[in-house]
């Protein structure tokens, strides 16, 4: 029986994903990305409030969709990022995959919470109630719980290397489970509430709402990328702090 260490092929990906290299090249990316995010939001908000007409069915409440839809999209996209990073952690044991997972979890939770909040705000004028036990709202709420559980698990571990691999297992199990939860919630909803107010396909999408929707989705995605990158950088720095502190404590302890 032979054990081999994870091979390091010095390909382009390995090189840019090495923690030291990563810190080097991302340093020059953060500021442009932040500026691009700000510009996209400026453009998006202008289109949302000044350059798009009210929807012929929803009226002005359509303007809430321009925040709701991008945050809802990010709430799932974050999980996809965590899922692929979890595979990176378990299969290749890549340190940057650990860092990416850890950085994405709070962002996912925040965007999911925002999607729920904007959904509730939109629900009041549309359904007449803030919270409707609607299939989408309910499964989004469960998704929020899963994010919070994963964050709690991260925090329960002292050894962050072990935490990354354990959390990866939960993330993968969650990924298998989320569709099942979605299905069960939909099944439950047809049981209790045959006629849903909120049609999944939505009202026919007019071109006039498509532009602000796309621009805002782009802006939110850029925001996620920026925040994720900065948080990854912070996490790499924290690990560096930890090893420096360890070395210092060892030196001060007068170890032989």
């Amino acid at each position, binding site marked *: 029986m032979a054990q081999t260490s994870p091979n390091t092929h010095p390909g382009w990906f390995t090189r840019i994903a090495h923690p030291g290299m990563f810190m080097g090249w991302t340093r020059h990316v953060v500021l442009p990305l932040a500026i691009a995010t700000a510009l996209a939001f400026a453009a998006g908000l202008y289109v949302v409030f000044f350059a798009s007409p009210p929807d012929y069915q929803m009226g002005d409440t359509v303007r809430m969709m321009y925040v709701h839809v991008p945050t809802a999209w990010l709430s799932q996209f974050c999980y996809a990022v965590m899922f692929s990073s979890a595979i990176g952690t*378990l299969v290749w044991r890549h340190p940057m995959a650990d860092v990416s997972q850890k950085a994405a979890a709070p962002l996912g939770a925040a965007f999911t919470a925002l999607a729920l909040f904007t959904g509730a705000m939109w629900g009041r004028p549309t359904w007449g109630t803030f919270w409707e036990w609607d299939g989408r709202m309910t499964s989004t709420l*469960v998704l929020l*719980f*899963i994010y*919070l*559980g*994963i964050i*709690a*698990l991260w925090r*329960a*571990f002292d050894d962050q290397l*072990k935490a990354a*691999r*354990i*959390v990866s*297992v*939960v993330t*993968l*199990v*969650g990924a*298998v*489970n989320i569709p*099942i*939860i979605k*299905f*069960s*919630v939909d*099944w*439950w909803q047809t*049981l*209790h509430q045959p006629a849903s107010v909120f049609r999944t396909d939505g009202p026919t999408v007019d071109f006039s709402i498509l532009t602000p929707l796309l621009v805002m989705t782009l802006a939110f995605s850029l925001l996620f990328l920026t925040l994720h990158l900065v948080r990854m950088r912070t996490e790499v720095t924290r690990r560096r702090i930890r090893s420096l502190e360890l070395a210092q404590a060892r030196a001060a302890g007068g170890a032989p």
Partner: protein
Amino acid sequence: MTAFLAILSRDLKLGLRQGGDLLTLVLFFVIVGVLLPFAVGPDRPLLSQLAPAIIWVAALLAQLLSHDRLFRSDFEDGSLALFRQASLSLDGLVFAKLIAHWLLTGLPLVVAMPVLALVLGLSADGFWLAVMTLLAGTPALTAFGAIGAAVTVGLKRGGLVAPVIVLPMSLPVLIFGTGAFDPARVGAASQALLLLAALSLVSMALAPFAAALALRISGE
């Protein structure tokens, strides 16, 4: 196969000999089921309408209570490390442990059902349906709980984190388990039972791999 049966019979023996745990579990299930009517009020029609929900919430909580000890004692006394040198893979051994755990924590709930059925005013049909859903659904609870127990086995205060992870994942079991009782829908019961059984089969088949992976990581 010898290893599989050895684990199964050892866990059953230990569970039955330390009979206190078994009794506590059943007692907890019944107490939760009996306490909820106090919160709702002694309205018999309402209670019998709520009975499936009460039974399933009690079952969920009782199962949650039992998961932490699934791997902890084997982890702490070094047995898990030795399992890695067995002739059977750790996945297989974990599967054996899951079956033993279900026999010790899922099945007794069914045995305690008549008490709750009486107190909650469940009809005979309702009683049998409740028994069927518990039988079909609790293996899935065991499977999800095993994953929660495995990922927190290395944590001293793991008992607190595990339920937060396990409960959202158990939602489908709760939905199908109680959904079977819906009187308004024709075929809801058989549909829900099928879905529960499918969920239990798939999760019992897959959970050992996830749990064994987490146990290997925790053992390092």
